[in-house]
């Protein structure tokens, strides 16, 4: 696996292509003509169209990411299917409804998220509750780079080099009590910084804060990863800075971002998409080509990879996103068609 490091995505400044004023003018004209979706008129913050991409790059500085010392962990690399998704695509195509519902909203609206100071609380059925600050998060454990397949429930996928540590390490540090059965996660709730949280509609109907959950067995599997970086640097906010979960055999919405609370529980926690539409998004949400989303097929996925428009690939989706050998044992005796 060779890691292709792309230059920053603003390698070509807009002005190399078209004079800046022309761009701005065109942007204004297009807006006046109403060629932006109707929603863009509603909330300029949360639904800001792509037309703001040009100005945001010039007016707002991109979030500063720092290099993270890490060791390469290649144990799971043989389960990858495909080349790395270029960094510029990983950080500009995101679902993070807290910053707006379109794929380009997070990169536009999240750049000013304050991640330092940060507080991550580990509590619940543990021997020693922990409160980690920003430095703890980055330095408490030796960091590893792991490359994982990533499959979104919307049937697109990427291959991403994450930097972080196993969730199990963190849970062991806190000491899980014997009556614990599940682990619950919660994203930052801060409508001032996260425009999608201001009202239910700009955030896609989700009742914030965003919450997720795993069974204890899932959480303790080595594959379950706490990511603090990607492509060798700290996470940008649109990917869930400063710390997020990565559960590569589940649909992307399980991999909750910008976490402030991890609670070990003795009952099944709630999860946001399940609360919103239980018939479409289950608690397990394991990647499964046999179980379609009620409104679209999950049998194949569009791989977002190197190259332009015509290099897109549609590939078959694998059970457990390719990690079946490692995790199918967690679901023995469970009917995965009913427990989707």
């Amino acid at each position: 696996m060779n890691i292709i490091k792309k230059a920053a995505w603003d390698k070509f400044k807009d002005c190399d292509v078209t004079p800046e004023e022309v761009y701005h003018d065109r942007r204004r004209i297009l807006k006046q003509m109403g060629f932006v979706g109707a929603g863009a008129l509603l909330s300029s913050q949360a639904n800001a169209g792509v037309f703001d991409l040009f100005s945001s790059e010039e007016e707002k500085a991109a979030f500063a990411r720092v290099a993270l010392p890490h060791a390469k962990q290649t144990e799971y690399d043989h389960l990858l299917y495909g080349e790395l998704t270029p960094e510029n695509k990983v950080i500009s195509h995101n679902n993070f409804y807290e910053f707006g519902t379109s794929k380009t909203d997070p990169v536009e609206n999240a750049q000013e998220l304050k991640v330092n100071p940060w507080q991550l609380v580990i509590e619940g059925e543990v021997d020693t509750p922990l409160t980690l600050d920003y430095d703890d998060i980055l330095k408490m454990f030796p960091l590893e780079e792991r490359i994982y397949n990533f499959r979104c429930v919307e049937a697109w996928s990427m291959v991403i080099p994450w930097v972080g540590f196993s969730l199990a390490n963190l849970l062991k540090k806190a000491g899980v009590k014997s009556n614990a059965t599940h682990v619950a996660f919660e994203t930052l709730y801060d409508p001032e910084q996260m425009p999608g949280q201001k009202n239910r509609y700009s955030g896609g109907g989700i009742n914030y804060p965003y919450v997720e959950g795993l069974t204890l067995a899932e959480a303790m599997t080595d594959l379950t990863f706490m990511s603090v970086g990607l492509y060798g640097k700290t996470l940008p906010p649109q990917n869930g800075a400063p710390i997020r979960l990565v559960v590569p055999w589940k649909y992307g919405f399980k991999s909750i971002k910008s976490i402030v609370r991890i609670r070990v529980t003795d009952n099944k926690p709630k999860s946001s998409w399940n609360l919103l539409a239980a018939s479409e998004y289950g608690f397990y949400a394991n990647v499964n080509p046999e179980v379609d989303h009620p409104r679209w097929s999950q049998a194949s996925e569009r791989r977002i990879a190197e190259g332009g428009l015509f290099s897109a690939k549609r590939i078959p989706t694998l059970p457990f996103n390719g990690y079946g050998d490692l995790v199918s044992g967690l679901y023995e005796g469970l009917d995965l068609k009913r427990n989707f």
Partner: protein
Amino acid sequence: MKNKQFRLTSRSLFWLKGLMHCIGLLPIIYLVLLVFNDKAGGDPVQYIIHYTGVGALNALIATLLISPIARKFKQGMLLQTRRLVGLYVFAYASLHILAFFSLDLLFAWGLFFEEVLKRPYILVGAAAYLLLAALAFTSFKAVMRKMGRRWQKLHNAIYLIALLIPIHFYWSVKSEIIEPILYFIMVGLLLGIRLKASRWWKQLSVKSKFKGREINPES
């Protein structure tokens, strides 16, 4: 002295049509620029599908706006622009489907039919597209003359299309329903205006006024 009432001349209509072509084409040029400058997000395929879909729907709203505006400002000639704008709906919808078929499904026919069946929202979109195509192919003057009264009947299908597309939109999204709902409201208003203007509505309201008195409003 009061000004003479403004009337569209065929010359100003010519320029108006030119302007409409610009409004129709500019967004496509813009999209091409975005895509080739890497500004259409990490997944330009999805971006293009959404952009052209919303473009078609916006053009559809514009088409439906023409006759109320023409009536309100008494500019009958404006009605002659409906064909032009309507064909842009068809053009954007064609690009939308072409993008889906070529860039997303990569010309996999099998997958196309599978997806059409598996995703009910695509079935709705496909139905709307077939109707749109029927309207586009019968939009020539000669065909119009040949079809006579049946032409108007067929072209009333635009109202059905106007309802199908927001359904297609609403059904395709995960949970971001505010935008499709806004389009539902817009289409509702535009159809409402027509309902109100139609004789049927007038009759209905007259009847309800005289209800119980057994007076035939027509007599």
